[in-house]
């Protein structure tokens, strides 16, 4: 049986519609219009123990709502979820001892006290015995290099350091499932990288199940074998990142270093010219024509260097999202994105 089973899950919010301006605020006092917003729609998903799954989707797609449903913070409109044999929104203490949720935008530590104090409180709340607590804390603070920061008030830490503390707090009770909602939001590249490395290592060591939402493609490329794309509350794709790239990036980029500074001719016939900055030239070429294109280049020009690259991941995903938001009743060949699972 899967560690997480989501069946026909729906969550609808009533959202108050305020009309524009002061007059709208005044009429809103007497009569309010509500709109039903489907945050999650007929979601079906299974996650196996030990998987590292990324939730991808534009803002407001329903990723965070799904994490909230899984962690039992909100009740669904309909459908069922089973996590390790528990129904999350019953909020049983046994369940709450076995998972953790980290939100990049929320602070769960005591602001005015050193993180160590928050950790001590977690130790009691989660009933961690002293030996295990000390061992885990030492391990985590070594991995995240936060040993020196444990006795500084949390408010004096940088955003990156605070995130490390949040992760430590969440992992002290050795949860079997970890939900991460934008764990690297607002962090600089180095801090992002540190957190990625840590998560990768930790997940491999402990073989825990991690569900992650993020807008940083680097996070996802570095961490997740499996990607679930959600848009408009619905599951649109479920499979590996590689498959998404195959499906949604029909072109590659070829960069040439020519040995001449004379304007080359006939570039337009090869593909879309992205950039001419002699001696460098950048072209975009259909995936299936790359080989033919290169051999023609070799015939036409004297080339010092040549590289062929996939589109930047960000661009691919932007394509995916743009594609997802189109009405689904068109008959383009790529329209049917069937889950590979």
């Amino acid at each position, binding site marked *: 049986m899967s560690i997480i089973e989501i069946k026909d899950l729906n969550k609808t*919010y009533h959202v108050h519609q305020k009309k524009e301006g002061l007059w709208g605020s005044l009429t809103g006092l007497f009569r309010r219009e509500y709109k039903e917003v489907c945050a999650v729609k007929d979601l079906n998903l299974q996650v196996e123990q030990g998987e590292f799954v990324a939730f991808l989707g534009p803002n407001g797609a329903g990723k*965070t*709502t799904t994490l*909230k449903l899984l*962690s*039992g*913070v*909100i*009740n669904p409109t309909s459908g069922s979820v089973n996590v390790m044999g528990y129904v999350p929104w019953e*909020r049983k*203490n046994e369940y*709450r*001892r076995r*998972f*953790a*949720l980290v*939100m990049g*935008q*929320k602070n*769960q530590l*005591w602001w*005015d*006290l050193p993180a160590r*104090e*928050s950790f*001590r*409180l977690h*130790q*009691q*709340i*989660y*009933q961690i015995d002293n030996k295990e607590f000390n061992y885990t804390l030492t391990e985590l603070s070594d991995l995240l290099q936060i040993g020196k920061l444990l006795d500084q*008030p949390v408010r004096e830490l940088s955003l990156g350091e605070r995130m490390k503390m949040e992760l430590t707090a969440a992992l002290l009770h050795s949860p079997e499932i970890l939900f991460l*909602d934008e764990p690297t939001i607002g962090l600089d590249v180095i801090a992002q990288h540190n957190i990625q490395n840590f998560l990768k290592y930790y997940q491999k060591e402990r073989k825990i199940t991690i569900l992650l939402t993020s807008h940083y493609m680097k996070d996802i490329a570095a961490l997740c074998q499996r990607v679930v794309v959600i848009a408009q509350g619905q599951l649109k794709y479920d499979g590996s990142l590689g498959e998404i790239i195959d499906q949604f990036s029909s072109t590659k980029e070829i960069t040439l270093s020519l040995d001449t500074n004379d304007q080359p001719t006939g570039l337009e016939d090869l593909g879309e010219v992205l950039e001419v900055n002699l001696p460098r030239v950048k072209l975009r070429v259909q995936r299936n024509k790359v080989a033919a294109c290169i051999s023609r280049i070799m015939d036409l020009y004297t080339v010092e260097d040549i590289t062929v690259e996939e589109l930047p991941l960000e661009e691919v995903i932007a394509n995916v999202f743009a594609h997802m938001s189109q009405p689904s009743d068109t008959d383009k060949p790529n329209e049917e994105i069937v889950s590979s699972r």
Partner: protein
Amino acid sequence: MSNTVVATTISHTIGHRFKVWWMIFKISLEERLAYRGDFALGTLMRFLPIVTQIFLWGAIFSAGMTEEGKLFGYSYTDMVAYYLLTMLARAFSSMPGLATGIAAEIRSGEIKKYLIQPVDLLGYLFLRRIAHKVAYYAIALLPFAFVFFLCRGYFSSFPDLLTFGAFLASLVMGFLIGYYLEACIGLVGFWFLEVGSLLFIYMLLSFFLSGHMFPLDILPTSVKTVIELLPLKYLAYYPPAIFLGKIQGWALVYGLLIEAVWLLFFVVLSRVMFHFGVKRYSGFGG
């Protein structure tokens, strides 16, 4: 055999609970003491109104006193003693920031952290509140003692032990009613998000009807019968009235019982509100 196992498990669970409570209490206390300067100043400043109140009552008495030196059954010294004791009662029952804090956590979504951890929000905040009070008393004890020492002349006699016990009981229950009542107001935030106005109404009513401003005996009998039925009087009026011997015998027993019933009512109400509120909660704020 199995009985002993059950017994040890139970004692283990209880032991564990105390450990959690103790830790929450300790950390709250530490947090409270993090800003020592602001905290000490805030605590001490609360003593300032005493002087003005004593003068105010002095002026009122010199203007409207009856021939035996009484006003509404209170002598001037009684009135000052009442005022000082009210201050003490309010030190127990007032809950600055509780309702607004709960509502703010609901609105911002901070409340999620209590929902994902194996803790109980109301119990957690309760321990934090005790820690706040303890920190407050620790600082205020000396000034309180000093003020009562200076004003010892206003207290005609010390009550007997039984009355004093009832006085203490009403102080403690006043604290509990204050906590659960304000927690209920905060939990209204699940439905309305903003509870500022509601809290303002509560504060206003409480200011006049709890006995904070004047002893409730001043009010006309018809108004007083209504106020007698409300829980507000236990927040300020009741403990001093017991101390000063205004309530005695069966009336006292009866009054404390009603106080206990009100306490139970607010405990249950807060639990019910929390239960349904969380169901309604849709996780505002990301």
